[in-house]
């Protein structure tokens, strides 16, 4: 009973937040609603008994990806009126994507009898362990491949944004700590009325 209640709570907040993402006027609010949607999706995962996925969703998407989103959106100088203008132009595309997703969900819903059964977790194996077993044994090559793709994406992003600037003073901590008394301090005894003569 309680679980059903929580399901409807999480599900309705997810849907509402999703709606607010696309309808709110301020892009920062949109991102904040997106975070709320992620969070409630994590709640749905917990109800499914997939606590590892739920936590991963929160750590990765909410804790890292959405922070960067928020960062970028807050830093941009956005003209709110201009943002609305493309609405008519992009609407068919959006409707198309939405329609495809809806069709997929309906397909699953009406053919649920033919779908492969969800594997019932044996109680002795937590789903963290179960996921690890499958990921690192059966799908190890795909897993490594995904890692490589992410690495390439990361290197690409760095290569695109890194610019070499000249005449920038940088702190070289190694050379700073390697300085000794001998090469930085010189003791000179100065006779009065003459000043120091540098050789």
């Amino acid at each position, binding site marked *: 009973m309680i679980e059903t209640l929580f399901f409807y709570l999480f599900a309705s907040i997810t849907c509402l937040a999703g709606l607010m993402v696309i309808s709110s006027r301020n892009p920062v609010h949109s991102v904040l609603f997106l975070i709320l949607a992620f969070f409630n999706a994590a709640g749905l995962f917990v109800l499914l008994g997939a606590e590892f996925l739920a936590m991963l969703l929160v750590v990765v998407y909410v804790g890292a990806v959405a922070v960067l989103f928020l960062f970028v959106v807050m830093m941009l100088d956005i003209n709110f009126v201009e943002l609305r203008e493309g609405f008519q132009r992009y609407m068919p595309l959006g409707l198309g994507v939405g329609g495809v997703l809806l069709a997929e969900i309906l397909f699953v819903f009406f053919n649920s009898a033919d779908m492969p059964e969800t594997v019932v977790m044996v109680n002795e194996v*937590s789903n963290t362990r179960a996921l690890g077993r499958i990921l690192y044994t059966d799908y190890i090559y795909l897993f490594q491949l995904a890692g490589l793709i992410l690495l390439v994406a990361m290197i690409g992003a760095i290569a695109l944004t890194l610019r070499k600037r000249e005449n920038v003073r940088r*702190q070289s901590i190694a050379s700073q700590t390697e300085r000794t008394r001998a090469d930085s301090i010189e003791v000179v005894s100065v006779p009065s009325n003459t000043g120091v003569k540098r050789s």
Partner: protein
Amino acid sequence: MSGLDLTYLIELGWLVLQVFIVIIPLLIGVAYLTLAERRVIGFMQLRKGPNVVGPFGLLQPFADALKLLSKETILPAGADKVTFVIAPMLTFVLALVAWAVIPFGESLVIADINVGILYLFAVSSLGVYGIIMAGWASNSKYAFLGALRSAAQMVSYEVSMGLVIITVLLCVGSLNLSDIIEAQRTVWFALPLFPMFIIFFISTLAETNRAPFDLPEGESELVAGYFVEYSSMSFALFFLGEYANMILMSAMTTILFLGGWLPPFDIYPLNIIPGPIWFILKICFVLFVFLWMRATTPRYRYDQLMRLGWKVFLPFSLIWVVLTAGFLISFDMLPATAGLN
């Protein structure tokens, strides 16, 4: 049906009671942590600190709280009202919800979940939202700069914190916090994983925006960082949240490295002291080091902070993860996979 409802109600009531048993001492602890901070730093700087209100100044935190309560709550004119009000609440709530999974003693825990450490990590990584929202909604340069600094700092140090946690998990073989503590029965992880312990502690300093990494607040350059525009109770909520986060991070350090509720040695006079007392003593010790650091170290420059996080801690902890894994595999010391959940 009514019988079912009654058991539900009793369970719910018991749960609420448990929550209060944890939260009320926590809030009192937060109040006294602010006092302890002022007193300890006072003594370290050869002054007395607040010692007037009550014996030894013990009533000072309550005087401060009453003062804050009686102040006016100010909503800045250009602020985004809803976000501005939600931000301090979010910070405070996030500082409290994490305590649901902290084990205070053997099976003394509100929710003993399988992925406890991930839950803690997730909640601590959410803390940044309160700060970003506050900084953005205040519509002030100082607050915004403070929030940006804080967000970048917390995201950076989370990476190395994650790797440190992975190292510990390699030695435990479970994500459950009670299992992590049980695994330290022979030796606390602070000894075999000593470098990781130091990295974790420094990362928690950065994660809680404490000195020497208190750039988000940098009073000399940003007036007070992300909460300049806050006053009265909303300011108090930030303050409480920040100190509750300090206690939480100390608890995390204790659980991961200092053996949680286990006594240092399992010998007679030490093992009759109940587990929760050991747990609290260890947390107090870590908190004292937090305060000690604040009194000792000067503030880092921002580029030095980022360098430390990305160029020193990240590669080092990554190497240490590989080394630990290699060591455990080559000496066949990987924790048993069967039996544990």
